[in-house]
């Protein structure tokens, strides 16, 4: 008992507030508890956070559950809307659109994936568009929403949803949560990080004005600046900009001109793309671009020209470099959030990566004696996560028919990682999609982007032929009808928010 308590980490210091900092603080306060651990968070009100309007993926529900956060409460406080997927416009070619939904297409038949049958029907000219078989997509297109309903066998029970919310308010919300559970917040700007001479471990943070915060374990949530993991520990960074050449973003919210829709929009421009995240009170927008192909002024112009409401704050330019930290856990420090690496928000993965980082950290949480024993596993898993998301993002740029700019010409013809190359090849030649281990994006996601961006399978699984074509066509028709019926009965997104989580 004594050995245990002697070895136990006593003080955890989180450097930086923002989404990453407060999500970490909230989770630690709930799961580890502040009676056993002192959890401190240092942040400065002077330093802004990156998050503008933040879009998430369905895994965030799990985070809310663990924290026992009432979803409707949290939505009211963060001006949140529901999200059923992302609409990609102009990616394959200008004027084309598809939705990457949260949820599957159709249902497996005889243990074979639905899309194999769809490929066959399509080749016979009997299939409807892929999106007609996705309830999440159809609901998004009709601006409808309901949480999944417990109806056996119904598409209504089988889709996911996430949220679009104001990241600033989200951090505030979680701050309230974490402070109520004992997290101590210190206001202040970090001026330096002190290391222990022998071990090289972080010993303390010094704040402007002279205060010193010591700790046993440090979590770097300082964003792109990465003050601890890079600034102090010089961990190193692996650059991926040759695959994902965008390196800048200009963001600005605008007034809402219509009731918020239940999906995020990602519209490709000539040197990048623009996000549109509809919230209850306003719309978040941003233009992600490659500065070597487009100037900041031009990029800002493109953004402003493509807003659907009046701009309500000065556009803000953010610089980043896509890639990852060589180690995410180094010594007695773990980097969570943008300090760990940067992947553009094309598939809304930032918050998810924060969440998985937290959950891995909690699982592998160290003691003073075994400070780095979990680090290797943590780093290995995080590299895997990062790389699989990276490859999925690269697919969006690589699979295009666009020839209207140098940017797209570069992307279309660039070399891509081997994993992605093999995945594309397998789909084209056999229609098969394999999910590697726990990679984040599963079969329907890959299918959505493959088909949405013009990568087509040349064959389908031969086992599919065991079902007579007429029967297959009948089943597909029935399934489509069921989806249409479900959509008929779903409330509008606006109505659903009004009934459940309207911001006060």
């Amino acid at each position, binding site marked *: 008992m004594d050995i245990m308590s002697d070895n136990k980490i006593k003080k955890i210091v989180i450097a930086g507030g923002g989404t990453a900092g407060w999500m970490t603080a909230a989770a630690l306060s709930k799961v580890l508890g502040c009676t056993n651990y002192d959890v401190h968070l240092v942040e400065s009100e002077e330093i802004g956070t990156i998050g503008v309007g933040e879009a998430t993926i369905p895994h965030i529900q799990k985070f809310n559950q663990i924290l026992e956060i009432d979803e409707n409460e949290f939505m009211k406080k963060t001006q949140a809307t529901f999200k059923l997927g992302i609409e990609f416009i102009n990616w394959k070619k200008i004027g084309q659109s598809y939705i990457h939904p949260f949820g599957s297409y159709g249902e497996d038949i005889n243990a074979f994936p639905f899309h194999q049958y769809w490929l066959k029907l399509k080749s016979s000219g009997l299939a409807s568009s892929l999106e007609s078989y996705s309830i999440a997509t159809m609901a998004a297109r009709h601006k409808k929403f*309901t*949480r999944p309903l417990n*109806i056996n066998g*119904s*598409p*209504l029970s089988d889709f996911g949803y996430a949220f679009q919310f104001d990241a600033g308010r989200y951090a505030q919300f979680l701050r309230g949560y974490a402070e109520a559970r004992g997290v101590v917040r210190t206001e202040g700007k970090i001026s330096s990080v002190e290391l222990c001479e022998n071990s090289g471990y972080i010993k303390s943070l010094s704040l402007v004005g002279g205060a010193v915060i010591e700790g046993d374990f440090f979590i770097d949530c300082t964003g792109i600046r990465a003050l601890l993991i890079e600034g102090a520990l010089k961990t190193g960074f692996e650059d991926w900009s040759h695959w994902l050449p965008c390196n800048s973003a200009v963001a600005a919210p605008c007034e809402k001109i219509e009731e918020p829709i239940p999906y995020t929009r990602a519209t490709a421009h000539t040197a990048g793309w623009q996000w549109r995240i509809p919230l209850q009170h306003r719309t978040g927008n941003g233009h992600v671009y490659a500065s070597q192909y487009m100037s900041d002024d031009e990029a800002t112009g493109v953004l402003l020209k493509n807003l659907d409401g009046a701009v309500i704050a000065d556009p803000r330019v953010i610089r980043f470099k896509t890639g990852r930290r060589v180690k995410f856990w180094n010594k007695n420090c773990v980097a969570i959030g943008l300090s760990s690496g940067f992947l553009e928000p094309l598939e809304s993965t930032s918050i998810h990566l924060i969440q998985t980082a937290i959950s891995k950290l909690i699982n592998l949480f160290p003691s003073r004696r075994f400070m780095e024993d979990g680090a290797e596993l943590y780093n290995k898993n995080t590299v895997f996560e990062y790389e699989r998301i990276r490859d999925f993002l690269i697919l969006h740029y690589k699979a295009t028919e666009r020839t209207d700019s140098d940017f797209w010409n570069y992307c279309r013809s660039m070399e891509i990682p081997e994993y992605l190359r093999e995945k594309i090849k397998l789909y084209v030649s056999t229609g098969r999609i394999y999910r590697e281990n726990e990679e984040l994006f599963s079969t329907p996601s890959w299918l959505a982007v493959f088909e949405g961006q013009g990568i087509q399978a040349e064959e389908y699984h031969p086992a599919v032929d065991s079902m007579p074509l007429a029967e297959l066509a009948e089943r597909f028709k029935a399934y489509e009808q*069921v989806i249409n019926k*479900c959509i008929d009965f779903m*409330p509008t997104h606006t109505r659903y928010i009004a009934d459940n989580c309207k911001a006060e």
Partner: protein
Amino acid sequence: MTSHRLVIYGGGVSAWVTAAALTNAYTVDVLKVVLVNPGVNTKEPSIADSGFTSLRRFHASMRISERELMGQTSATFKLGALYKNWSKPGQNFIHGFSNYGSMLDGIDFHQYAVLLHQCGDTTAFDAYSLAAQAAAAKKFGFLNKDLVEQGFNLDYSLHVDLSQYSQLMQTCAVRKHLEVICGQLDHLNLDADGNIKALVLTSGEVVGGDFFFDCSGSDSVLVRQLPGDKFLKWDKELPVNKQIDLVGGAAKSGLCTDLSVCRGGWLKSIPLKDKTLYSLTYNSEYESDDAAMTAAINFAGVELSDAVQPLTIVPGRRERFWVKNCLAIGAAAGNFTELTFSYLHHVQSGVLRFIDLYSAAGVNDFSAQQYNQLTSDEYARVLDYQQLNLLLGAAESSGFWSCTSKIPRTAELQRKLSLFKERGKLAFEEYETWMPGSWVSLLLGNNYWPEKHDVLLNGCNLELVVKRLGQMRMVNSNLAAQLSDEDEILGKYAILK
């Protein structure tokens, strides 16, 4: 006022039930009841009956203790019919007596089930029936007053041994004031109008009376001798002509009558406390007697015995049931098939209607006309119901079942099906044996779904509907789990035998 004298001719179930009902309804000062028992086997069901809920009301009106009756007739509690492999291969559906779901916001429950079905719901319809949940768990019990006031019900009937049941009815009737004469009919004495004056027996004995009941089974010994009698065959409407009855050991549970399709027709089993009646009803055009016998023996799990032979059955009815001063009851009046059928209900319904219409002041044409009209209507609706069961039997498509879609239907059944298919509404006729809820649950449980939901549901809160339907299912299964084990309750009843 002189007392009228009613004469019953017959010695089977229908005769004894008629005697018991009449002696119970009238004191001897009003009506004198005589039964002439020919002492031969009557052509009518005699092994077991799968009752409807009306059976219990009949017993209550006779002041017969259910518990005693059950002890004396090897009875089991019946919660409904189990359609095994009927409308869809591998699907089991329990058609319970009690209600399915409950009304929401003034709209019939089943409309919500239709709505969810259209959204792809695959929940079994009987998940909404307490009776079905109880039967599936082999549970039974009597709901307390609180539950009943909350709208729950676990309506039930009984499976009874018919020969023991006849005995019981005989005891009841004799205890009242029945006079029994043994003897076989030689001929009828008719008056100038064609009314029966007396039965002249082979012994020479003359049994006179004011009114006569033909309870002689499907031979219809009395009515067929009366002027203008005619038998209407249902050979197209119910195209079966053979039946094999086998008695096997006691079933695992007595709570349901089982029905399933087979090549030549259908199989039915009625579980009693100590044995089970297995019957196979078929059409000999589609199945040979030998093949049917093999199928029946496999079904019943008994040894082949020469004593059992296929019976010929002739579905149909008399054109008129009440002719002059004679009324045909039971098989003498009409023969349905053994498909969702209770012979006791058939008999009791006839006697009770007579009691309702009989005027002690004498027999008049109005009573006869009215009786014949109402009974014709009732039979037509029973026929509709049996036909519907045949239409729903889609798990088999060969043999007998290749012809079921061509069965001529009444306009009423056609209307029922069309209206239901179109928008889930049930056309309810007068003098139906089955209540609208029974028709609806039979249809939905056997996958006959309407094409549209009720327009009243447009704009309803789907999330709330799903939640409330989920609650209904949960309450049913929780409630079912709290009931007693069937064996335990039946065990208590057996002590009284």
